[in-house]
C-alpha cells in the first residue's frame, strides 16, 4: 500500500509550484495513494537487465544547415505578455533589495 502522508502531498505540491486549497490537498492525498497502489503491479516484474525506453523511433543527430531562418518578431513574442517593459518581459523579482542584485 502506498503511504503518501499529508506532509508528502504538501511537499510535492510545493516542488510543482501548485498552490492548493485545504480541500484539494485532502482529496489528492486519498486519490494519489489510490493511484500509487495501482503502480505496485510493476514491482512484480524483474527488469534488472532491461534497458529503459525514452523514445521509440531512435532518430539521432538531427542537424540542419547552420543558416539563419526567420523567427518570431519581438512584437509577436511579447504580444501575450502580462507585463512588458520595452522589448522585455517583466519578471517577478527573485532577489531581494531595491533595484535588484
Amino acid at each position, binding site marked *: 500500500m502506498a503511504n503518501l502522508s499529508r506532509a508528502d502531498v504538501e511537499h510535492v505540491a510545493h516542488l510543482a509550484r501548485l498552490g*492548493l486549497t485545504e480541500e*484539494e490537498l485532502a482529496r489528492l492525498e486519498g486519490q494519489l495513494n489510490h*493511484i500509487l497502489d*495501482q503502480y505496485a503491479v*510493476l514491482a512484480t516484474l524483474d*527488469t534488472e537487465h532491461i*534497458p529503459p525506453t525514452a523514445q521509440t523511433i531512435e532518430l539521432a543527430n538531427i542537424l540542419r544547415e547552420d543558416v539563419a531562418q526567420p523567427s518570431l518578431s519581438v512584437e509577436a513574442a511579447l504580444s501575450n505578455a*502580462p507585463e512588458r517593459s520595452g522589448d522585455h518581459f517583466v519578471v*517577478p523579482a527573485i532577489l531581494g533589495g531595491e533595484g535588484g542584485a
Partner: protein
Amino acid sequence: MANLTRLHAHEMSRLLRAGEVTSRALTEAHLDAAERQNRALNAWLVIDRTNALVMADAADARIAEGRRAGAAALAALHPLCGVPVALKDLVSIEGGQATAGSKILKGYIAPFDSTVTARLREAGAVILGKTNMDEFAMGSSTEHSAYGPTSNPWALDRVPGGSSGGSAAAVAAYHTPLSIGTDTGGSIRQPASLCGIVGLKPTYGRVSRYGIVAFASSLDQIGPFARDVRDAALLLHAVSGRDERDATSAPMPVPAELLSLPAGDDEAAAYLKGRRIALPKEYFVEGMEPGVAARVREALAAMQAAGATVEEVSLPHTHYGLATYYIIAPAECSSNLARYDGVKYGYFDRSSGEYIADYLRTRGGGFGPEVKRRIMLGTYALSAGYYDAYYLKAQKVRTLIKQDFDAVWAAGFDAICAPTSPTVAFPMGARIEDPVAMYLSDACTLPVNMAGLPGVSIPAGLSDGLPAGLQIIGAPWSELSMLRLARAYEAITARAAWRDLEPAELKLTDDPTTPSPIERKERLRSAPAPGSGPRA
C-alpha cells in the same frame, strides 16, 4: 443539391473540381449546422465564420484557376482544397486562441501557425474553428475542459470520449467532414470509437508536433478524424512528413497512395485475401462490455470469411500498460507544464506581490483538477528517492511492452486487431470522481502510444444502440497498409444496416429547449447518477 453536410471529403473534392459545388457553399452549410447545434453539443469552442469564408473563397479561386489552367493543374491541387476541417483547440493558428481546454491559456492568442495548420493552409483546406477537449488533453471524456463538457450526439447525456471529444463529436454530428485531434494514450481512437467514426493515431514522428500544446512529448501524436477511411487517409496525407521545426518528426516518405485508397468495395475487400491478423487475448480486459467484445469478434469473423487468417497471440505485458503509462505521461506532463508561470503568456495572479506566492497562485488558480493530479503524480515520480522506483522502472517496462509488439511483427503478422475502448460511451459524471475508472478507458489504446505504433479505430456496429470501435494496430510506418485493411473492413460491411444510422439524438440538438451539456452536468450532479452500465 442534397444536404452538403452529409458528403464525405472525397466526394466534396470531386464535386469541387467538377464545378458542381463551391467551397463557400460547403463551408456555409457546415458553419450553419455547427452554429445551430453547438449550444446543445458544446463540441466547438470557436466557430470562425469570418476566417473560414475567406479561406473558402481563396480555395474557390485556386480551383477556378486550376480549371482554367487545365487538367494537370487541377490534379496538382491537394484533394482537401476547399474541404472544411476543424482543429482541436491545442493546435496553434496565427491570430487565434489555443486554450488547450484550460483556464491558464484563456485569452492567449497564438502568434504563429503550427506546422499542421501551415500544411492545411498549403493544401487549401478550410479551417472552420476550434474544438473542445479535456484540459491539456488529459482525460477520456472531455469533462475536464475548463469550458464545459461536450455531449455525444448518439446520447446527449453521455460523453463523447476524450481528450479530443469536441473533434470527434463535430465530425459525428456532420458539422465538419474532418477534424484534427491529438492522441497521447488514446485521445483520438477512444472518442472515435465512442462517437462511431474513424480516428487515426499515426506512428510517432509521422506528424510534426511544432505548434501543438505539449502534454507528454514522447507519446503525443497528431492525427485525423473522419467519417470514412478514405477521408482519414486524405487528411493524414495533408499533415504528415518531416519538419525541420520538430526534431522528432521522421524523414520518412509520405505514401502518395494514401490519396487513392480503393473506391470500389470489391477492390477494397480483395486486400483481405492472405492477410494475417493477430488477435491479442489480453485486450479482452476485465470490465469489457460483452456487446463490445461481440462486435470485435464479429468483425474478425467477417475478415476471416473474406480471406484473412486470424490467430490469437499474446502481448504478455499488456496488464502492466496502465501503470506504466500513468507514470510516464504524468512525468512528462509535469515537466512540460512547468512553463506556465504567468510571465510570458496566459493567466496570472500577482495579487500577493511575492514571487513564490504568486507563482503558486497562478498555477493553483489556472490549472483544473485532473491537470493538477497529473502534475502531482509526475512530480512525485521524478522526485529524489522515487525516480528509480517509478520513472526508471516504467521506462524499463515500456521496453517490455514494445518488445511484445516487435515479436508480433517478427512473426509476420500484417496487423493486430483489438477493441478500441472496453465500453461504449458512458454517462456524464459516471467516472469523474474516480480517476482510476477513467484511466481504464484507455487500457486498450495506451500500449500503442508507448510502443510508438500507428493505430486506427473504425466503427464496428452498435452495442445497446451506441457505437463500438474496432482498433487496427500496425507496425511502425505502416499507415498505408493499416488503412487498406481498415478500408477492406469498411467494404465488407458496407451493406450492414447500422452503417445507415445517424447519431440517435442528433435531431434533438436542433431543438432550442434541449439542455446544454453544462445544464446536463448540473442536473446529473443534483440527481442520482444513472449508473455506468449500458442503456436498456
